[in-house]
């Protein structure tokens, strides 16, 4: 199992995502934003960070990088794609996920250990969880407030496309406490929280984050 981790200029959590992939039992493959080469990986992770310094809009410039054209095409073909934080922002800017991530309502960057409720345990990235399971994963962002038009939010909830919601407090003012959403086919997932920071008891608040990475191995076997 080979899982690609894309490095954009300003990506920061690429080393963390690669470590999480390795701890989940897969082989991390470094992908470079400027190449048109997905290196035949079985899934792709867009890591957190500040690609292009968040200039223009968070994720906006990275979404136009050469490799993203390949990611979009492959995602339409069913390739599992996980965007974390800045990666989620890139996926929204690239049109793979609905909605947008905007400045936190309190205007501060916020890093804390965050409770999450798993609402969908059947996407490519969440089968290791039980529906309704509560987990703890760090959240850290300055522009993590998920927004969409009310009608779109109604539709997303109606279609069951909210993957995880914040519990025990909403860290950034996200609409309806939404922490992550998925594509219609459940193969592309965007998360504001950082599961790659909760993969080892030594360094994380929990090891709950590992489940996202082990899930995709199951999804690939099933596919």
């Amino acid at each position, binding site marked *: 199992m080979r899982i690609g981790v894309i490095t954009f200029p300003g990506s*920061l959590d690429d080393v963390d995502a690669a470590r999480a992939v390795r701890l989940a039992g897969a082989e991390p493959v470094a992908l470079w934003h400027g190449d048109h080469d997905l290196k035949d990986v079985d899934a792709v992770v867009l890591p957190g960070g500040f690609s292009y310094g968040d200039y223009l809009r968070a994720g906006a410039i990275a979404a136009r990088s050469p490799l993203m054209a390949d990611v979009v095409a492959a995602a339409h073909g069913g390739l599992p794609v996980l965007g974390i934080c800045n990666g989620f922002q890139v996926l929204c800017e690239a049109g793979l996920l609905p909605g947008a991530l905007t400045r936190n*309502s309190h205007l501060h960057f916020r890093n804390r250990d965050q409770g999450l409720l798993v609402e969908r345990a059947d996407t490519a990235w969440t089968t290791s969880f039980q529906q309704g399971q509560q987990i703890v994963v760090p959240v850290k962002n300055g522009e993590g407030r998920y927004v969409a038009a009310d009608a779109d939010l109604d539709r997303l909830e109606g279609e069951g496309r909210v993957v995880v919601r914040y519990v025990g407090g909403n860290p950034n003012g996200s609409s309806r406490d939404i922490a992550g959403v998925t594509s219609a086919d459940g193969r592309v997932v965007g998360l504001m929280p950082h599961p790659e920071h909760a993969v080892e008891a030594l360094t994380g608040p929990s090891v709950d984050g590992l489940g996202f990475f082990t899930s995709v191995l199951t999804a690939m076997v099933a596919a």
Partner: protein
Amino acid sequence: MTSTPHAADGPADAAVRSMPDLDTVERAARTPDTAQPFAELGLKDDEYASIRDILGRRPTTAELAMYSVMWSEHCSYKSSKVHLRRFGDLPKSDALLVGMGENAGVVDVGEGYAVTFKVESHNHPSYVEPYQGAATGVGGIVRDILTMGARPIAVMDSLRFGAADAPDTARVLPGVVAGVGGYGNCLGLPNIGGELLFDETYAGNPLVNALCVGVLRHEELQLAKAEGVGNKVVLFGARTGGDGIGGVSVLASETFDAEGPAKRPAVQVGDPFTEKLLIEACLEIFAAGLVTGIQDLGGAGISCATSELAAAGSGGMAIDLDAVPLRDSTLTPAEILMSESQERMCAIVEPGKVEAFLAVCAKWDVLATVIGEVTDGERLTIDWHGERIVDVPPRTVALEGPRYERPMARPADLDALQADAPPSSSTDLRADWLAIVSSPDGADKSWVTEQYDRYVRGNTVLAQPEDSGVLRIDESSNLGIALSLDGNARFARLDPYTGAQLNLAEAYRNVAVSGAKPLAVTNCLNFGSPENPEVMWQFAEAVRGLADGCRELGLPVTGGNVSLYNQTGDVAINPTPVIGVLGVHADVTRRVPTGWRAAEESVLLLGESRAEFGGSAWAAVVHGHLGGLPPRLDLVAERSLGELLAGLSADGLVSSAHDLADGGLAQALTESALRYGTGARLSVPGDPTAALFGESVARVVVTTTDPAAVRAAAEAAGVPVTELGTTGGDALVLDGLLELPLDELRAAWTATLPALFGSPEVAVGTVPVGTVPTS
């Protein structure tokens, strides 16, 4: 993306005609009597005279600019150098690979790894422009670490502001915190700890001290020198703009004048995205062996980098200033030389490697430009439009600046201050306890630390609010390091010699509490004006104390930073020697946290408690009192305690350990209990005020499931042990004295900073607990 040096268009005389005001070397020699604005640039009469002596003529405008910034207090350490020699006189340490004088000291931590760390001030810019001042403070210290060949792996920040409820604190603090976070977060460096303290003496003079730590393999070490005639000088990173011109001489080296003009343009503007690219490009360049020397551009910009590189090498250097990429084409040559535009580096590259060097920079979208070369002369020359505007011996700029033995005098008020003993008995222990933990100094710092990323890079083992920051260095061996920054200024005000040592002792203890072996020391010495003999005495005493303390503990000083002129008008800050201690963890999985997780564990106090209230948080918060003598220093006891803690950690005998410092036992118990919401029932022997609020040093509270083993180890180490009680329940109960439900305690502890600086929308609760394997 790249360019090479080019000659001025047309013959030289045409260039001169187009720039009739250009002050060339030739013209300076011809016009010795031209009046020069040296005083406005911060140079004194005798300093200007000595520049004329060195050059045998008057300096050109560009040369005057260079000397003025390089001879500023900030760059030249002219008032402090004679005292800092004491650190160099300490016994040699085998652990020290690179000592003072380079950009940062480098320490051997074993397994072929080395660690470089340093703390630096950005006090004055942060007062003028809080966000950018603090942000570029982080950026600057990160480049110092990078310059040594290391990958920066974490930052810390030690912050001090005026009274917490003062209107100006509300202006400065949020910007400083956002700046530290904004820059460090965007660079991908976890912030693993620091300090946040308040005192009226910092009103108008906040302290923003930033630490960076980096890791490298021994063979990856880089040095800042220009060797090899014909090697190219490459400037890379951001373009040079008009920001920060004269920052070091104007801001860092002069006292703020309440009536003075706004100094905003002298503060630099940071771009952390460019710095992140610069880090990745540099590490790739180092790995490919493409540089022979490297220097970052910080204070004094190109003046500093070129003169320091040339002065440290064996030859000279020729620079073509026209090649420097500019943001603003109207900058004069002197402004280009003085500009402190951020995110720039200067490398010495062999001609055959220039192409590969430029290719790495292009990959990371980093602008790189050859601006000159190493020459066989002994002069640093700089040309502009084909005319020579600088021709100086580089050592006279970089190394041989003025040096002062400033007059010193013991502060006239010190005897009275020391004779003014603090109160020693509490009339309401419960109220005093709550007052201390809800005071701005004692209160929960989540309002600040939640603005910092502590997780990035995935190696943060402990971070704030723990006693020290702990990082894993190697994932296979679990080698790690611990770092703490401490600077109690009240103690230093009462006795700067002992105060500096007490700060060293606290940082040492904080590192030891985590189970690490303390290895090396850095420092950031923040004081008032050196032209005030009483301040100079405080400074000299603090340096003497720190040097003596390091000798006693067997630790080398690896480098540091001096920040003087921290005063507004005649009012100097309390002397604030901030001391950083680095420790090493052979197995970082053995780290000991501060919080109590489990009930039914024994709570033990290690060390001896005395009725010591001089400079204590209790005296300050409850009585508004600062006087008497600081606690008695006992470095032998600190050392025994440190060795005991390392042993307890290695043997897995303690489940938590928390250092006792500001606020004494009351503060420590509060923090340990609230960390995971576990209370305790305890009884304290002796006088309750001394037991709860005294600040005797060399003390730590530990919890254990095996009190007999801890007691035996402590007795073997000669460390006194007091059994206090047992963890459990939802309150801190001190038998016969008071009872504090954790909910009430938490409310008091967490409310203060949000109330002062803006409320978070979600109440801070107990840390949520996810799935953690028990192994």
